C-alpha cells in the first residue's frame, strides 16, 4: 500500500532492508531476568531465616512426637527418630490422662466440634444478615446500631467475663456446650458483621435495586442474589471463626464443665497433669493434633482466603 503511495521508496528496497535486519537482531520478546542480584539475595535470605525460625519448633515437635521415651531421654531434640513410633499419637488421642479422666484428647475434640460447628454457622448466618441489612435496608438509627456493635469489639473481654457468667446462669446455660456457643456467637458478631457490611457495600447498589424491581424481598435478594456471589467473604468468615473458636481457651475454661471442655482446655489439662514421668512425646502429639484443624482449614482455603480478605478490605 505504502509502496504505491510512495514510489520513490519502493525504488530503493536495499536501503530499507538493511536497517530492518539490524533491528530484528536486537532485543525481542520477554526481557530476561537476572537470577541473582543483591536485592534478591537479601530478600530470599531474609525469608529463609524467618521460615527456619518458625519451622524449627515445629520440626522439634514432630520429631519428638515420633520418638519413644528412651530415645527422648538421650537428648538431641533436633535429631530425627531412629525408630519411628506412632504410639504417642495414639496415646494422646485416646489414653492420655488429665486429672479427671483418661480417655485422651478425643473427648475434647468432639466437644470442640460440637462447639465450633454451630457457633461458626450461627455467628456467620446472623452477621451476614446484619451486614446485609446495614448496607441495603438502612433503618432509622442503623448507623448508631453499627457504631455500638463495632464499639463492642474494643471492650476488653475481662470486663465482660463475670456479667456473662450471670447471664448464662440465669438462662440455665452455664456450663453447657450451648452456653459457650452463645458466647462465641456474640463475641464474633462485631468483626464478622463489619466484614460482611464492607463486602456488601462494595457491591454495586444497582444490583440490589434491580432485584427489588424484579420483586425479590428481603430474603429473596439476600439468598438468591447476594449470597451466591459472596463465596470469598464467606470463606474468610469461616476461617476466622473456625480458627478463633477452635483456638479459644479462656471462654472454654470459664464457661464449660470438665465433661464439655473443648480440645484446647483438654490439651492444657493433659500437658499440665503430672503423674509420674512427663511424657514429652505424648504432649507434642497432643499439641499437634489440636493444631491440626486450623492448619487444615488454612491449607484448604489459601487462595479463596486471600481473595476474600482483599474483597472485604475494599471499602470502609
Amino acid at each position, binding site marked *: 500500500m505504502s509502496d504505491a503511495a510512495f514510489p520513490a521508496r519502493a525504488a530503493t528496497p536495499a536501503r530499507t532492508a538493511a536497517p530492518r535486519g539490524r533491528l530484528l537482531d536486537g532485543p525481542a520478546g520477554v526481557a530476561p531476568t537476572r537470577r541473582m542480584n543483591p536485592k534478591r539475595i537479601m530478600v530470599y535470605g531474609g525469608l529463609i531465616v524467618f521460615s527456619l525460625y518458625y519451622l524449627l519448633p515445629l520440626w522439634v515437635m514432630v520429631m519428638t512426637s515420633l520418638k519413644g521415651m528412651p530415645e527422648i531421654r538421650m537428648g538431641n531434640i533436633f535429631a530425627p527418630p531412629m525408630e519411628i513410633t506412632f504410639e504417642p499419637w495414639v496415646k494422646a488421642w485416646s489414653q492420655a490422662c488429665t486429672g479427671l479422666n483418661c480417655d485422651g484428647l478425643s473427648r475434647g475434640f468432639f466437644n470442640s466440634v460440637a462447639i465450633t460447628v454451630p457457633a461458626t454457622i450461627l455467628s456467620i448466618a446472623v452477621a451476614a444478615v446484619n451486614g446485609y441489612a446495614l448496607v441495603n435496608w438502612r433503618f432509622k438509627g442503623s448507623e448508631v446500631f453499627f457504631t455500638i456493635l463495632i464499639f463492642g469489639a474494643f471492650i476488653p473481654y475481662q470486663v465482660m467475663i463475670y456479667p456473662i457468667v450471670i447471664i448464662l446462669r440465669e438462662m440455665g446455660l452455664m456450663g453447657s456446650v450451648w452456653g459457650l456457643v452463645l458466647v462465641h456467637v456474640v463475641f464474633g458478631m462485631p468483626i464478622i458483621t463489619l466484614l460482611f457490611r464492607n463486602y456488601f457495600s462494595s457491591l454495586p447498589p*444497582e444490583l440490589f*435495586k434491580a432485584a*427489588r*424491581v*424484579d*420483586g425479590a424481598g428481603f430474603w*429473596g435478594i439476600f439468598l438468591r442474589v447476594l449470597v451466591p*456471589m459472596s463465596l470469598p467473604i464467606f470463606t474468610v468468615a469461616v476461617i476466622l471463626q473456625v480458627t478463633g473458636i477452635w483456638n479459644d481457651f479462656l471462654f472454654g475454661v470459664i464457661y464449660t464443665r470438665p465433661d464439655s471442655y473443648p480440645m484446647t482446655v483438654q490439651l492444657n489439662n493433659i500437658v499440665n497433669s503430672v503423674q509420674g514421668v512427663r511424657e514429652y512425646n505424648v504432649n507434642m502429639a497432643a499439641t499437634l493434633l489440636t493444631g491440626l484443624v486450623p492448619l487444615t482449614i488454612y491449607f484448604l482455603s489459601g487462595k479463596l482466603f486471600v481473595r476474600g480478605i482483599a474483597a472485604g478490605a475494599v471499602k470502609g
Partner: protein
Amino acid sequence: MAQALRAAAPTELDGISVSIRDLSLSYGSVEVLGDLNLDVQDGEFLVLLGASGCGKSTLLNCIAGLQPATEGQIFISGQNVTWAEPSERGIGMVFQSYALYPQMTVEGNLSFGLKNARVPKDEIRRRVARAAETLQLEPLLKRKPAALSGGQRQRVAIGRALVRDVDVFLFDEPLSNLDAKLRAELRVELKRLHQNLGNTMIYVTHDQIEAMTLADRIAIMRGGKIQQLASPDVIYRKPANLYVAGFIGSPPMNLLPGRLEGNRFTGPLVADVTGYDFTTRPRGPEVVLGIRPEHVRTGAAAEALPIRAEALVEVVEPMGADTLVWAQLGQTPFRVRMDGESRVRTGDRLSIGFDPASLSLFDAASETRL
C-alpha cells in the same frame, strides 16, 4: 382529600401513563428534587436530560419506588403508587451498570422477576423466548453475564425489563458504558423497540444526541427542577431560558448581551429584530440575543439577510462535513458553523448574517425567553 383525588383520577389521568405531582425529595437539609410536576403520555418516549448531579437518577428512582419521596404523589397507569413497592408499580428498569445477577445465566436473569411473581413455568418459558428473540439473545441464554460483551449485557438488562410485560420502562443512562459505535447501534435498536412495543419509556441521559434522536419530548433538568419540557425541535429552536439555550447544541448557541429598544438591538452587533416571534414583551431594555452557530450565514448568502455584521476569524476547525469557525465580533467570541467546502483562514474578515426568525431573545434579568 384522598377520596377526592381517587375519584378524579380516571378522567384526569386519561391517556397519561406516569404523572408526578408536586414531588419533593430531600436528603436531610439538601433538597434534590423540588416541587416537581410531570405528566408522561401513554406510549411516549420521554428523555430526562441534564448535567451531572441535577437529580435525573433520583427522579427515576422515585418513579421506580427505589427512593421514597419526601412529599408529593406519583401515579402510574392511573394508580396512585406513591407508597407501592417497585415490583408492584408496573415498571421495568435498566441501569447504566447493567446490574445483571452474576451467578445466574442469561436465562436465569431474564426469568428471575417472573419467578418472584410466581408466573407459571410455561408462561415464563414463552416470555423469555420472546424477549430473547426480540433482542437476539437466543445463543447466549445459557451463558453467565461474565461471558458477555458490554453490548450483550445491556441487551440482557433490557430483556429483563421486557419479559415483565410492563407499561413503563425506565432507563438510567443505559448506553453510556458502551463505545461510540455500539451506542449508535443500540440507540437505533431502542428506537425500533419503542416503535414495536409502544410502551411508555422514560430515559435518562446526558448525551444530547441520544436525547434529540430518541425523544418524543425532552425534559431539561437543572438543580432538581424541570427547566423546559418540549419536543426536541422546540427545545432546539425555542429554548425557554438561557440555561437551556447554552445546554443544548454543540457548539452551544452564541449569546450576545445588549440592549433592546423597540425592535433595535444594540450590542456586539446592531440588529433590527423585526420578524422575531415575541412570546412576551421585554420588561427591561437589558437582553441577551442568542443565535446558533449553524444558523449563521456567511459571504454572499449573508448579504441578502436582514441582520449583518463582520467578524474576525481566529481559529478554524475543519471537521469534514462542516467547518467550525471561532471568530471575534468586536470583543465578543462568536462561533459559526460553515459548510465543509468553505475556505476561510485565520485573520480573514468574515461577513456574517442571519434571519430574525432564527434567533432567540432572553430577558437578561430573569434569563427567560422573550
